[in-house]
C-alpha cells in the first residue's frame, strides 16, 4: 500500500480521429518529487498532461491521487482535486487585467460583488509573494510581454498550494533567468509536498531539476529512471527508438549554383536574424523543436508574413515578397501546415483546387478556358498520383493523404523554383508519404530548391541534403550530409549550448555550404 505512488496514471489511451496519440501510458510519481516527462514532438506528452489536468477526456485509463480515483471531467474538477497546470499556450485572458486573471474564480465578494480595489490589492500581494512587484495588477495582460505572461501563468497555478503541479513546456519561451525562476518554483512546490510533472525539451533542465524522468515514445512510456543513471545518449536513444523504414526516395546531388540566399531575415514571431542559403536542386531541411520560428520562416518566404528586416535573392534576383501573390509570381510555392484550412477549398472539386493558384494559365481575356483547366488539372493529378477519375469530386470527400497530394499538385503545377513544405507529411499514411518523398526527389532532380520542415526527425535525415536547425528564431547550426543524424539534429535543437548563448547566432556567416560536420551557434562541434 505504502509503495503506491501519490499520482498514478494507469493505462491511458487516447486517439484523435485515426491518429493514436496515447497507447497505454502508465506513470507513477511521488509527492515531493519533480518528475520529468520527455519525448519527441508528437510522443504524447502534452496530450497526457492535458488529460491529467482535465482539459481533454481519455478514451481509456484512469488517474488516481493518493490511492483514490480522481474525477477528471473538465478543468474545474481537476482543479478541485488540486491539479494545476501551467499551460504551454497561455491560459490567461489577454483582454482582462492581471488582477482579474490572477484571482479569476477566487474573488472575495460582498453580496456577490467584487470590489475592484480589493482584487487589485490581493493580486498585488500575490505578486509580491513571488517577487514580481514590477507587474502592475491593473495592467491588461495583453500589454505584458510573453515572458511575463508565462510567469503570471505560474503564479496563477500556485495561488493555492497544489497537490499536482504540471509544468508543460513552461520554460520554452523564457530567458534563462526566468526559466530558472519557474523551475525553482516547481522545486519549491515539490518540497512543500506536491507532485510536480515537468515537461521539457531541454535535457539540461531534466538534469538540474528532476528527481526522476520518464520517456514517452509514440504514445507509450518506454523508459523511467533517475537522471543520474540515464545519460543524455540513453535518453535520446529512448526518445527516438529504432526504426527501419524504406519509404525514402533516393536523392540526387544538388547542382552547384546557389538558388536562394537569405540574409538577416526577421519577421513577426521570428526574431532572427536568419541566414540561409540553398542550391538548385537541394532539399534543405528546417529542423528544431516545435515553435522555434520554422512556420514563420516559411510563411515569410511565401509572402504570407511581413518581413521586418532582411533581404534575399532567388536565382540571383532580389526577392522580397509582400504577398503570396508576389511569391507565386516569382515561382515560389508554399504548402501550408494546415491543409484543410490554408491549403484547400474543401467544398470545391479536385480540379478547381489543383488549378486554383495558376488560374492565369488557364484563362484567356479573363475567361476560364475549361478545356485547358481540365488538361492542366489532369496532368497535375497524374504527377502526384491522384486518381484522375476523381477530378470532379469534392476535396472534402477524399482521405487526408489524397488531400495532401492535391495541395502538392497545386503547389507544383507551375514548376516552382522554390518549394516551401511545412510538415506536409503529418497525419498522412505511409504510402502517401512515400509518394510525397518520391515527388520531392523528382522535383529536386529537375532543379527545384525545396525547404522542408518536418516534425519527424527521421524524414529530415533521410530526405534532406542539409538541415538547418532553428532555435528561438535563429539558425543554431546547419548539419551537413555526412554528419546528418537524428541525434545530431536533436542535440542541436535541444540545445546543449545553443539557447544559452542566444546572441552567438547574430554575427554568424551564412550557413556553411561545405565544411561538413555540425556547427552549433558557438562554433563547437557536436560529436556523434
Amino acid at each position, binding site marked *: 500500500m505504502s509503495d503506491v505512488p501519490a499520482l498514478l496514471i494507469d493505462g491511458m489511451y487516447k486517439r484523435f480521429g485515426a491518429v493514436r496519440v496515447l497507447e497505454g501510458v502508465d506513470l507513477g510519481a511521488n509527492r515531493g518529487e519533480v518528475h520529468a516527462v520527455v519525448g519527441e514532438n508528437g510522443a504524447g506528452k502534452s496530450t497526457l498532461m492535458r488529460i491529467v489536468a482535465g482539459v481533454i477526456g481519455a478514451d481509456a485509463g484512469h488517474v488516481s491521487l493518493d490511492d483514490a480515483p480522481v474525477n477528471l471531467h473538465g*478543468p*474545474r474538477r481537476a482543479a478541485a482535486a488540486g491539479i494545476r497546470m501551467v499551460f504551454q499556450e497561455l491560459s*490567461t485572458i489577454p483582454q482582462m487585467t492581471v488582477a482579474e486573471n490572477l484571482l479569476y474564480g477566487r474573488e472575495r465578494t460582498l453580496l456577490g460583488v467584487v470590489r475592484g480595489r480589493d482584487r487589485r490589492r490581493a493580486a498585488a500581494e500575490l505578486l509580491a509573494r513571488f517577487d514580481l512587484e514590477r507587474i502592475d495588477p491593473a495592467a491588461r495582460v495583453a500589454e505584458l510581454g510573453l515572458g511575463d505572461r508565462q510567469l503570471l501563468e505560474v503564479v496563477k497555478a500556485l495561488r493555492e498550494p497544489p497537490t499536482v503541479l504540471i509544468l508543460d513546456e513552461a520554460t520554452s519561451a523564457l530567458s534563462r533567468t526566468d526559466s530558472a525562476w519557474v523551475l525553482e518554483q516547481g522545486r519549491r512546490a515539490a518540497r512543500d509536498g506536491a507532485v510536480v510533472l515537468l515537461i521539457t525539451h531541454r535535457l539540461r533542465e531534466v538534469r538540474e531539476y528532476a528527481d526522476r524522468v520518464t520517456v514517452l515514445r509514440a504514445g507509450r512510456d518506454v523508459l523511467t529512471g533517475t537522471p543520474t543513471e540515464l545519460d543524455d545518449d540513453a535518453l535520446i536513444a529512448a526518445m527516438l527508438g529504432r526504426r527501419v523504414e524504406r519509404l525514402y526516395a533516393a536523392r540526387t546531388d544538388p547542382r552547384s549554383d546557389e538558388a536562394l540566399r537569405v540574409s538577416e531575415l526577421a519577421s513577426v514571431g521570428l526574431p532572427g536574424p536568419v541566414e540561409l542559403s540553398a542550391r538548385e536542386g537541394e532539399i534543405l531541411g528546417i529542423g528544431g523543436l516545435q515553435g522555434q520560428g520554422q512556420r514563420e520562416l516559411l510563411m515569410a518566404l511565401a509572402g504570407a508574413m511581413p518581413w521586418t528586416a532582411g533581404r534575399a535573392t532567388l536565382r540571383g534576383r532580389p526577392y522580397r515578397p509582400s504577398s503570396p501573390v508576389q511569391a507565386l509570381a516569382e515561382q515560389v510555392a508554399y504548402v501550408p501546415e494546415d491543409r484543410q484550412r490554408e491549403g484547400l477549398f474543401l467544398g470545391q472539386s479536385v480540379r478547381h483546387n489543383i488549378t486554383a493558384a495558376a488560374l492565369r494559365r488557364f484563362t484567356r481575356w479573363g475567361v476560364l478556358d475549361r478545356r485547358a483547366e481540365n488538361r492542366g488539372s489532369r496532368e497535375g493529378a497524374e504527377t502526384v498520383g491522384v486518381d484522375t477519375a476523381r477530378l470532379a469530386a469534392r476535396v472534402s470527400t477524399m482521405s487526408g493523404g489524397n488531400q495532401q497530394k492535391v495541395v502538392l499538385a497545386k503547389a507544383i503545377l507551375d514548376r516552382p523554383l522554390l518549394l516551401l513544405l511545412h510538415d506536409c507529411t503529418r497525419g498522412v499514411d505511409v504510402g502517401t508519404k512515400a509518394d510525397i518523398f518520391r515527388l520531392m526527389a523528382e522535383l529536386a532532380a529537375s532543379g527545384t530548391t525545396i525547404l522542408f520542415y518536418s516534425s519527424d526527425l527521421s524524414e529530415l535525415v533521410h530526405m534532406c541534403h542539409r538541415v538547418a536547425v532553428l532555435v528561438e528564431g535563429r539558425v543554431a547550426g546547419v548539419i551537413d550530409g555526412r554528419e546528418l543524424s537524428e541525434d545530431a539534429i536533436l542535440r542541436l535543437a535541444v540545445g546543449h549550448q545553443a539557447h544559452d548563448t542566444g546572441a552567438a547566432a547574430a554575427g554568424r556567416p551564412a550557413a556553411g555550404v561545405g565544411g561538413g560536420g555540425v556547427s552549433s551557434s558557438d562554433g563547437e562541434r557536436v560529436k556523434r
Partner: protein
Amino acid sequence: MSASTAAPTRLRRPTLAAALRRGWSPTNAITALILIALIIADLSIQPALANLFQIGLLIETALPLILLSVAQTFVVLVGGIDLSVGGMFVVANAITAQWVGLHGGAHQWLVLVAVGFGLAMGALNGLLVVGLRFQPFIATLGTWTIFNGIALTILPTDGGSPPPFLSNLLINEVAGIPTSIVILVAIFVAWRALRATRFGVRIYAVGADEERARLNGTPVRRVKLAVYMLAGLCAALAGIYAAGANASGTPTGGDPYILTSVAAVVIGGASLRGGEGGVGMTMMAAMALTLINDIVGAENLNTWVSVAAASALLLAMVIVRTGINAAIARRRASGRPTTGVGGAIPARAGGSVSERGES
C-alpha cells in the same frame, strides 16, 4: 498565506479620475463625443428641451431601444448575436397589453408572467446555441419569427389595454424626477453591479476566449445560457415598459429594433467577436441614435435622413475603430521588435520594464 498579514501593498486611491482613466479608450471617447455633439445640436435646435420634464420624455422614447440594446450587448459580449430581441420584446409587450390588461388592476403580479416569458424565450435561444450548437445568428433568426408569431396570437392588432397602474408608474415622477430618468440610472447601476460580480467577470472571459475561460475553470455553457436568459429578461422589460409608457401594445413593433440594437452595440464600441465593450457605452450609443431621430423629427426632415445618419454613424465608427486598432498594433510592433518565440524578457534583477505606453 503569510502575505495577507504582511503590510498592505500600496495602491493608488480610487478616485473618479482614476476610474475615468481606466474606462478611457479612444473608441469610448469617440462615442461619448458623438453623444455630446448630438446633445448640443438638439438643444440648439430646440432650446425648450433643457428641462427635466422634456429630458424625461426623450429618455422615455429611448428606453425600449436602450433596454433592447442592453440585451444585445450581453449576447454580443459572449461572442453571439441575438436577432430575436425584437420578438421577445413584442411577446412581453403583447402579454402586458392583453393578458395583464384584461384583468385590469386586479392582478398586478401578472406582469411577472411577461418577465417569465422573457426568461423562457432567452433560455430557448440559449439552449439552441449551447445545447444544440446552433450558430447564434441562425438560432435567433429562427426564434425571432416564432416569437413574432406568438405575439400576434396573443394580440392580433395594435392596441390592447395595458394595466393603468403600469402607465401611472412609468410616466410619473419619483421625488420630482421623471421615472424614465430613474430607470435609466437604475439600469446603469445594475449593470455596474453585475459587472463586478463573478458572473460579470466570467461573461468577459467567455467572450474573450472560450477555451481559455474553460481552462480557468469557467462553466462556459452555463454562463452562455445565463447570458441569453439575461437578454430575454431585458427584452421583456423593454416590452413591458413600452406597453406601459404607450398605454397600448404593438405585436409587430419589434423588428425595427433588432438591427438598431446591433448598431447601438457596435457604435458603443463593443466587438462583435466578443469580450469587448460594455452596457454603459451601449446606452450612450442608443441615446445618440434616439437623439438623431429627435433632431430629424424637430427639423421635419424625411425619415430617411434619420436612417442615413444612423448608418453613417455606424460606418464611421467602424472605420475609425479599425484605424485606431491598426495604429495601436503598429505602435506595439515597432515598440517591441522581438516579440514571439525568442522574445526573452529582461532579467528580473534589471527591475522596471515600463516602456510600453498604450493608454
